[in-house]
């Protein structure tokens, strides 16, 4: 027995070195040579890595049945049973390239994306806040991109010949109705929301997804940030106000909550920078918000964001109809917005994304005609002046519920569908000079159903197709809006995309309730063709677009003399091309972009006498933005130059003999030029573990004081006309933002690594 065992041991050691060679060549299904792949006999040491010709060759001492495995990231894995006998094995292997988010084409037609994570985006989130002249307002930075107009007399995004009401803004999927502070006559107000709330921004200047609707021109889709990086307290002090906030990150880094409060008072700034209107109550804002964010065990998120603000402003301007009198306008606004959303992976490739939002808005507006001594001018009989004494209360409640289901199909193909319910309840009470009160209300229940699919036919061809079905109780009819976009990747990192879509929209609140009941939706059809070339440090894109408007609303005066929607006889078009170039490479440490838009548009809508170019559309618009960070000074320098050719203006008057509106006078404003400059100084930059971090900001808009005229107001009683100009030529902002990190380095070491 013993000898047998010994003998077998002896035999065993003798038979060891009979080696078999395994060799071959690895290619993909397009016959491309693959190097760097691991070729291995499973559960053994034996294997190799393919060389620069895709060849592999190694010796093995294994015998019998084994698995030969090939792995290479980005490719399908290969596993095949082989039988190792006496002969050398030579076999060629083919594996398939997987379509992944990293190598597949992305659909970009019509959209600018600002994100830090995704590839090929045009901007990063930081760009939104560091663009000079943008004044840390989300839309400020977007106005330096092609497609949007330099409109200074009212807020909102005017995109490709569309009015501001044709652009809608969404936060985590929820429509935000009062994104901007309530309008002031002849002045653009800011967006309500702090740009630091968002981690991703998609600005679609056309052809946007079927998940969104009720915007004829554009959609701005904002995604709120996930968890903060650490617990910290923030304080800001500036020439326009003070604020403070805290955000607390749970020890396990799975949840966070935060609150903040900001007080803005423009009195000190207006005392130094003279304003043209007489702000007898300088703009005053109280604004508070609260949030919580919880990361679920499956990697999903529950997020809540709540916001409330109160503000008031009152200003006097010279009355357009009289040389002696003044108009005093006062507004008080109270607004709340609350949104809770939940996104989750529910397994088997399914994702759920759902949200509820509730918001309220109330404006108390008062207008008075005053004499040189600011005394109210009273009237007992109706005339052109008497109607300038009025008060107006607008109140609105909005609620939205939304659910989107997403199913990951094979690879990165996906399908989404869902539904959206939006309720709006808007009331106005208008009190005339003689105490007569007119009230009206507009209620709407908007139901939408949508389905969309992302299909990658190959790595280089992607298709996104969707349809949206909507029913508005206000319109009492259905609409169906198909959307399609395609992208095709060419060689050397360039791609061509195409987008097509139909978009519908209800009449804007201002022109409701309508005098008829059988109105149709306004409709726009978009065609967009894009060429884009992206490399690590440079982006070039050009877009051609054509937009056709049908069934635009025409307005007529109702019984009270107010212009309201009357029919769908309006129409229009917008066409043009746009160029964008961003370069971080040519000049070291200098990052710049140039954008140019050409726009040809005409439309006949509201009270327009015919098809004319609207007042918010310049033919040529261009921006130049540059940023440079000087390390030794720890300072970022940002400059931007915005240019637009003059926009048309009209004196539209109702001609009683013809019983319609006519153009009494028309013209074109001077060109728009604005050079802005800003500076960010970060004294504590780069000091890891330092508890305080501060950012000093100085920004100067319209440095050169170039004259800007946005349009003209006309007197309805005489031939007087008044230029609409900014309240001050220049504006200077100085502020300091401090964060006090509650130092949790030790916690971080103990719990999170």
């Amino acid at each position, binding site marked *: 027995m013993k000898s047998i*065992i010994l003998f077998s041991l002896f035999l065993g050691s003798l038979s060891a070195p009979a080696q078999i060679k395994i060799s071959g060549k690895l290619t993909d299904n397009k016959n491309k040579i693959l190097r760097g792949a*691991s070729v*291995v006999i499973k559960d053994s040491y034996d294997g190799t890595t393919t060389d620069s010709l895709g060849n592999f060759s190694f010796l093995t001492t294994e015998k019998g049945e084994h698995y030969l495995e090939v792995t290479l990231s980005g490719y399908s894995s290969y596993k095949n049973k082989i039988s190792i006998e006496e002969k050398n094995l030579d076999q060629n292997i083919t594996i398939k390239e997987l379509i992944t988010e990293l190598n597949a084409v992305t659909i970009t037609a019509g959209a600018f994306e600002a994100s830090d994570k995704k590839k090929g985006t045009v901007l990063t989130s930081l760009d939104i806040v560091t663009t000079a002249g943008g004044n840390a307002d989300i839309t400020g930075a977007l106005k330096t991109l092609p497609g949007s107009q330099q409109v200074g007399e009212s807020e909102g995004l005017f995109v490709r010949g569309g009015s501001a009401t044709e652009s809608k803004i969404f936060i985590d999927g929820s429509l935000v109705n009062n994104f901007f502070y309530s309008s002031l006559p002849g002045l653009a107000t800011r967006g309500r929301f702090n740009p630091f709330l968002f981690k991703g921004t998609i600005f679609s200047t056309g052809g946007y997804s079927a998940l969104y609707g009720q915007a004829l021109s554009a959609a701005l889709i904002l995604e709120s940030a996930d968890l903060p990086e650490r617990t910290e307290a923030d304080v800001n002090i500036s020439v326009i106000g003070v604020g403070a906030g805290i955000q607390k990150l749970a020890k396990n880094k799975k949840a966070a909550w935060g609150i903040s409060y900001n007080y803005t008072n423009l009195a000190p700034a207006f005392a130094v920078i003279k304003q043209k209107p007489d702000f007898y109550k300088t703009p005053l804002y109280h604004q508070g918000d609260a949030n919580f964010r919880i990361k679920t065990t499956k990697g999903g998120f529950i997020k809540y964001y709540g916001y409330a603000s109160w503000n008031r402003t009152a200003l006097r301007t010279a009355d357009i109809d009289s040389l002696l009198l003044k108009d005093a306008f006062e507004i008080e606004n109270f607004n709340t917005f609350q949104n809770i959303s939940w996104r989750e992976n529910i397994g088997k490739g399914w994702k759920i994304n759902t949200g509820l939002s509730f918001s309220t808005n109330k404006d108390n507006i008062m207008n008075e005609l005053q004499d040189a001594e600011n005394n109210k001018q009273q009237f007992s009989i109706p005339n052109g002046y008497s109607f300038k004494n009025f008060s107006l209360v607008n109140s609105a409640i909005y609620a939205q519920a939304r659910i989107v289901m997403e199913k990951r199909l094979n690879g990165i193909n996906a399908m989404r569908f869902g539904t959206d319910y939006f309720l709006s309840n808007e009331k106005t009470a208008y009190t005339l000079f003689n105490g007569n009160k007119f009230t009206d209300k507009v209620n709407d229940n908007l139901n939408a159903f949508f389905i969309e699919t992302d299909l990658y036919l190959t790595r280089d061809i992607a298709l996104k197709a969707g349809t949206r079905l909507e029913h508005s109780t206000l319109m009492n009819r259905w609409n169906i809006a198909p959307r399609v976009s395609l992208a095709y990747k060419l060689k050397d990192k360039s791609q061509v995309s195409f987008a097509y879509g139909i978009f519908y929209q209800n009449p804007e609140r201002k022109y409701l309730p309508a005098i008829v009941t059988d109105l149709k939706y306004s409709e726009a059809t978009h065609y967009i063709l894009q060429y884009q070339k992206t490399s690590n440090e440079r982006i070039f894109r050009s877009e051609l677009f054509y937009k056709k408007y049908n069934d635009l609303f025409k307005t007529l005066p109702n019984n009270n003399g107010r212009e309201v929607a009357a029919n769908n006889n309006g129409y229009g078009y917008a066409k043009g091309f746009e160029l964008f170039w961003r370069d971080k490479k040519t000049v070291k440490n200098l990052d710049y972009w140039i954008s140019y838009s050409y726009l040809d548009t005409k439309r006949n809508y509201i009270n327009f006498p015919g098809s004319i170019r609207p007042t918010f559309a310049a033919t040529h618009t261009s921006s130049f933005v540059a940023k440079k960070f000087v390390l030794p000074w720890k300072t970022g320098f940002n400059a931007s130059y915005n240019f637009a050719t003059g926009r048309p203006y009209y004196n539209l008057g109702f001609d009683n003999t013809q019983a319609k509106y006519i153009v009494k006078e028309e013209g074109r404003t001077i060109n728009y030029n604005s050079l802005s400059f800003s500076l960010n100084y970060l004294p504590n930059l*780069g000091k890891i573990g330092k508890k305080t971090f501060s950012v000093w900001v100085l920004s100067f808009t319209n440095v050169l004081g170039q004259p800007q005229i946005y349009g003209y107001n006309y007197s309805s009683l005489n031939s007087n006309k008044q230029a609409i100009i900014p309240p001050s030529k220049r504006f200077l902002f100085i502020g300091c933002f401090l964060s006090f990190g509650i130092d949790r380095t030790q916690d971080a070491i103990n719990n999170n690594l």
Partner: protein
Amino acid sequence: MKNLMLLTAFLLLSFASFCQSEKFISAMKKNISLVDSASINNKPDAFVDLANTFERIGTSEKNQWLPYYYAAYSRVNYGFMQKNPVNNDAIAEKATALINKADSLQPGNSEISCVKSMIASLQLMLNPQQRYMQYGALSDNLLKKAKEQDPSNPRPYLLKGQNLQYTPEQFGGGCKTAKPQLEIAVEKFKTFKPATEVSPYWGKSYADMLINQCK
């Protein structure tokens, strides 16, 4: 006879496991020497081969953390040798998967924390301005953790010194702050004894080189 059978079986088994570990040790030693030469000769592609080889050994052995450690270390080195950082995230992802395997086999190891820190630095390099707050802090914390896990390990000091040396002076980096760390590393290299003949020992000449640059 029964006893003899048992004894033989036992002998056979230990012989087999001896063979196994000898095979393991010799394979590891051979490849670790290749890591050294790939570092010295600056050959990024050699690191891909090595990462694959170490991963193969790791998969075959199943209970050894060192093959995964070296596989991750090779991936990271491959990443650091790329001229263009565009693929850093993809490389880091691969390296992270490997180092996590090592971590689950050998939790709380100082050397593993060092490689994790290197992975964070690799990701930082893709966009330092934007990623500084996240990955810079992460990399730094991991080195602190590594120092705590094994105070005799010179590599956390070497990596800290290296990171500081390549950080602009305005950000608190440069030779002035790097040198004290590198000096500690050099001191510790003098007394550091690797636990086994295949345990990590790299970095001594690199520390000397960095210190020389600061002279």
